[in-house]
């Protein structure tokens, strides 16, 4: 039985793009797959709002970081699969480096306070 963990939070503002890019760096995926993967890997800490996710995908695709392709599912419906582009990979590296820098800075600050 699948449950919503009570302590799940919305994705931190501004990190959704990075999480999507990271998720897609492993393999091409459709929207729900991305949401699911983010939740799974974060062990249910992050919950992705479908609306925000789809808008973000649209935005990333427009920015040239994602490519999209339509595939047909077994029940002959159309599914949109996203994959990372070269520019997207570069962007992911940038975002990761940036995030790491910030996170470690915050961690140091918090440590210093203790």
């Amino acid at each position: 039985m699948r449950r919503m963990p009570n302590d799940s939070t919305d994705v931190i503002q501004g990190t959704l793009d990075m999480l999507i890019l990271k998720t897609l760096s492993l393999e091409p995926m459709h929207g729900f797959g991305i949401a699911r993967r983010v939740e799974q890997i974060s062990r249910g800490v992050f919950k992705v709002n479908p609306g925000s996710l789809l808008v973000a995908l649209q935005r990333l695709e427009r920015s040239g970081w994602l490519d999209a392709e339509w595939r047909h599912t077994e029940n002959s419906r159309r599914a949109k699969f996203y994959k990372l582009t070269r520019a997207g990979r570069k962007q992911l590296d940038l975002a990761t480096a940036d995030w790491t820098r910030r996170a470690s800075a915050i961690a140091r600050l918090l440590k210093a306070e203790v």
Partner: protein
Amino acid sequence: MLRQLVRGLRALIRRSDADRDVEDEVRHYLDEATAAFVADGLSPAAARRAAQLEIGNTTIVREQVRAYGWENLVSTFVSDVRYAARRLRGSPGFTAVAVSTLALGIGASTAIFSAVNPILFQPLPYPHAQRVMMVWDQGVDGSRIDVTFGTYRELAERSRSFDTMAVMKPWQATITGAAQPERLVGQRVSAGYFHALGLPPALGRDFQASEDRAHGPNVVILSDALWRRRFNGDATIVGRDITLNDNLFTVVGVMPAAFENVLAPSAEIWSPLQYDATLPPDGREWGHHLRMVARLRAGAGRGSAAQEMDVIARTPVADFTRMPWASMSRGLIVSALQDDVTRSVKPGLIAILGAVMLVLAIACVNVTNLLLGRGAQRRGEFAMRAALGAGRGRIMIQLLTESLLLAVLGGALGMGLAALGVRALVALSPPGLPRVSAIRLDSAVFAFGFAVSTLVGVAFGLLPAFQASRCDLQAGIQRGSARTAGGHQLTRRTLVIAEVALALVLLVGAGLLLRSLQRLFAVAPGFDPSHVLTMQVEASGHRFDDQRVAHRFFEQALEAVRQVPGVTAAAFVSQLPLSGDFEKYGVHLESSANTSPNEDQSVLRYAVSAGYFDAMGIPLRRGRLLDARDDAEGPVAVLVDESFAKRRFAGVDPIGQRLHLGRTDLPWYTVAGVVGNVKHTSLALTQSDAVYVPASRWYSADRTRSLVVRSSIAASGPGSSSALAAQVRHAIWSVDKDQPIARVTTMEDLVAASGAERRFALILFEAFALAALALAAIGIYGVLAGSVSERIREIGVRTALGASRADILSMVMRQGMSLTVAGALIGITGAMATSGALATLLFGVSRVDPATYLAVLALLAGVSGIACAIPAWRAARIDPAITLRAE
């Protein structure tokens, strides 16, 4: 960026595909989520519900995804435009009035801008045009006077502020050869002329300094137009000889087609000045007859150059002698070439530009008023949209879109009007207007028209949009049966008052100009211009170097002309009044102890044949006229005009007085009579003193003379005058067929032309003022009609309670006329404050001329009375029974 654009465009063009994609993606998401829940063990139905719960409202998700991207703004805008277009189509009457009002305003202002832009705002078509300066000697009254060659030489040697200085004078040359002889307008210029302007010839070379010396080689540079017309654009012309005035001149260059000569727009041929560098004291080298143009050195400013010129003027040096009349004692004037050529027309053009801006403002106010009136009718619609969730901003944007659409339509139509207007402007333009050839609809003008349209659209749309968006929801929807006239009437009335005030300012301007022109043409020119034909005749060629041959030619020509049927008198004169000819000499009276006559070049000299006064109709005041006796040997008899007699022989009988004109080394001239004053330069200018000398006795024969022919045939009609002109021309050519004839016109046309600048301004002001008056009347009518239809019920009640038709009529009339009176009061104040802008165009009328103001007020009262009467009459005919039943 590109990707954004391409994707956006694709989404925009294939809207339904994009919609389907979003829908499919959302549905797929839902499917996958359901499948996941099923995999977790839920029943399909429960899984579906859980998935639905997780994703929320799919419509909202779809909308969120769809709303992303710039193309959505565009599509909102497109739908706004579409809606606006539908609304405008829905009320064709309103749209037609608004669009044509705007087209009038935008078209008129764009046309005027196209004329004013090259003259006042665009730099002249020369490289670094702001560095090109004019340098003038200064007269007693601070006026600009031409420099002498001596002054030019000294300045060119001593000054350090200028790269190049050059002097020029007009030149007329008759070209002969394979084709018909043709009289060409040209310039004699010092070698640096084209260098000072910054444009070298396109073909061949510029003049060299070595060519600009006394008895230098005969060389010419041609204009592109002349080269194409006369030599079929043959490039081998450079180096070839052409015949000008019987002399061979070598063509050394051809100017580029783009060369615009603002200093002499009609000049087509240039030759070096070739003055004597040794500066003989009694030569033309010391005559004030050259204009000087100079190019500032890079980095030098006008101010510093003017200072340097003043220093040079104040400190004569031994190397450069100065004649007493060219001592530069009053300093020099340095002004930018652009300011210089536009100086005389600038105030008039600014006034016209101001006037057209007023028209544009009135057009805007009028359309604002129309929109406000429509906004009042559409209040229900806005309230409904607001109730359905449209934000205030959305309604405002929607309304602004409507007004912008109106403005764009008006602008497009206005551009068409401007194209016509520009053609009319060029056709009407007075002869003194510089750079007429540069007046056209170019990109700058289109940019101006577009900017004005947009600005105007926002300007007149903002107020109604703001007011509509502010409207109270409930009141708006309930307003099926409004009982009170809304507060928006106050805004509309204020706008109408503004309109009336602006229109009055224009009317006063037009009125003052009209009075000026009437006064101007009431000025007696001093001769009788009716039935007088005139043309310029030249004795061209070396055989006329002998003065007696030249005289004989003119004598014979006169004889031949007198034989033409209908000719009652004919004569020659060296310079024709009001024709632009201008020649002054210094005078020396025997009775005065004055030293040199040349110090004061203030007297017009006319060398005339004996019948001149009869032909022109100039009255004799005292003494006798010139006749055949005066052509013989003996003391030379001359005539002076009244102004001369009064100013120079104050209290003395002028008859028998003796004087020298120009040269002092000749026998005295004796005054034999006094004739009436003749306006020479312009009807508007005060009188100059004049001396009339028999042409046969003047010390050098004038080779170019104006023939004056008085006929019994009405010469005013172009047909009869040209028939007569053809006969006269034929008569002259029967004496010598090689002599060029130019400037064929009538004295009446010359008189009319002397008012051309004022007439130009007047025509424009009249047109603008009438347009403004009509717009203001429409404004008054619109507000009153709106107010009457809103107050139908109130008026019905009044009538039911016993108000008579006359009461209702006077009530509405009072309401309307109070707007006129308020507007008129403000307008009069405004007109008094701004009429100073017209000062240079006025003549013989004060800018606060009471008669003009009264006439204008009467006109305004009449027109606005009519505009008020129509709604008032309608109000008075309201049947109370019908309006009350309608409640």
